[in-house]
């Protein structure tokens, strides 16, 4: 299975990945409507690293762990690992208790803006392709399998 990897040296911190994450997870799939009408929380966490004379960034997403702490902490069974290995959250079942946020060591799960659920990367499985990667202007996030990631480490 492929996962999204962040390349620290290439990230500009522009936030386009978040824009497209929201679009891919919107009902309308329209960039303007997604932002202006639909209250969507991006599943990407842009990390800022302050250095002595500069700031660098990376765009962190769910690691789809082999034994996900979030799935084991989830009290409702909303968080699950699907047959492909993607860790997903069933918004119908989620009660937003934030047990997943409490245990994710990556900080990759966010409470959604509407307060009713949580937001995390699902690799845009329902949309069909990971839009964040497609629109990243600097190839700072890539979808890689284990061997590809090893080679680029």
């Amino acid at each position, binding site marked *: 299975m492929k996962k999204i990897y962040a390349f*620290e040296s290439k990230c500009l911190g522009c936030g386009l990945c978040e824009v497209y994450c929201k679009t891919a997870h919107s009902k309308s799939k329209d960039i303007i409507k997604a932002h202006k009408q639909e209250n969507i929380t991006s599943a990407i966490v842009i990390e800022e690293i302050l250095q002595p004379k500069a700031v660098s960034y990376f765009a*962190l997403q769910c690691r789809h762990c*082999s034994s996900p702490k979030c799935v084991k902490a989830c009290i409702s069974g909303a968080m699950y690992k699907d047959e492909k290995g993607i860790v997903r959250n069933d918004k119908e079942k989620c009660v937003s208790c934030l047990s997943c946020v409490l245990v994710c060591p990556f900080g990759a799960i966010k409470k959604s803006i509407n307060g009713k659920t949580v937001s995390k990367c699902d690799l845009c499985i329902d949309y069909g392709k990971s839009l964040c990667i497609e629109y990243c202007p600097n190839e700072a996030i890539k979808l890689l399998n284990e061997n590809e990631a090893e080679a680029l480490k």
Partner: protein
Amino acid sequence: MKYLIIGNSAAGINAANIIRANDKKSSITIISNEEFNAYGRPLISYYLSGKVKPENMNYRSVDFYKSRNIEVLLNTEAEKIDIKNKEISISGDVKLSYDKLLIATGSSPFIPQIKNLDMDKQKNVFTFLTYKDSIKLKTKVTKKSKVVIAGAGLIGLKAAEGLFGQVASITVVDLADRVMTSILDKPVADDIQSHIEQNDIDFKLQTNICEVDGEQNISRIILSNGEILNCDILIVAVGVRPNINLAYSAGIKTAKGIIVNKYMQTSEKDIYAAGDCVESLDLLSNKSKILALWPNASNQGETAGFNMAGTKKKAPAAFAMNAISFFGLQLISAGIISGLNLNNGITYSTKNNLRRLNILNDNLIGFILINDNQRAGIYTALINDRTKLSTLEYDITLKDISLSVYPKEERTKKIWDYKGCSL
């Protein structure tokens, strides 16, 4: 090989799931003394409030058992374990044999000694630990009910929240000087209490119920401070006790809970135990204690499952942690909260927003976050990994937490590990 699991909640289900993933052929049987397929036990207060509908109570998809070829026997009480013959007795003469047994019997409500209280006879007294408890309670309450809850812990307060708006009054009684004694210190508990009080829930603290009035139904409650409360519904939620009798009477080593090693194995080679019925080694105090927490039960169930199916794995570190909300106030706490002479680093605190970190000897040992949950799991990881705070990139009491707190090499290692978290 025959796997038998007593208990059908977080520990039992996670064990069964891992056993099946590692052993496609053997038979797996789960027995449960409840009448439902596994449900999210902490959801019972959400069911009570109406926020979660019955169809969303299921902990796993409807085909969980069938698709994994797991047999589940509901309404079935395990009565006795016969270690010598490797079998258990259910409902009288029926026996089930096993090669590997998991005891995941959970806990039961503790019923304190109260004069005239008779749980079997009085029809308006409830406990609040099972889906059935919640269904019974929901059927009984009316807009006119005056509800008294004994216990201001997580269970009592969630019951109060679940009933909010459906009854005439709710009064919570607790002997302690604060709410949620086990997970909060006094100042934070006081803030949370006043937030809950704004929703018309009354508290009677530092007193307890010493007597109840009424034969078939309790009508009045007498407190040790002399106060008398009218009562239509009494909920007893003063705590839980691990269900160890089955293990104890079979000769398995127990103390407060069932004693297990780091592989979740009991004093009997082929018998494992997991969840609220066992004692866990608390990472922070290094003492064996009951840590009745959903994530801990899942972890232990998974660990037991691996070991029962022949893959040796140690249980992950355990320590107290809770994420819970009350009337829109979101509370996250972990580790040691009070009772130590701490060099407390309160990063910031406003009326409805608090981030408090407890630091001892260069280690984060506990935290409380209210309405401020971003990346809380990184704090949990710092406790879990016993990370020396002086090795980090910045002072965690001065800046919001993020992965950039880790030095570059470590950060890269973490996010480039394909497996992420593994057991």
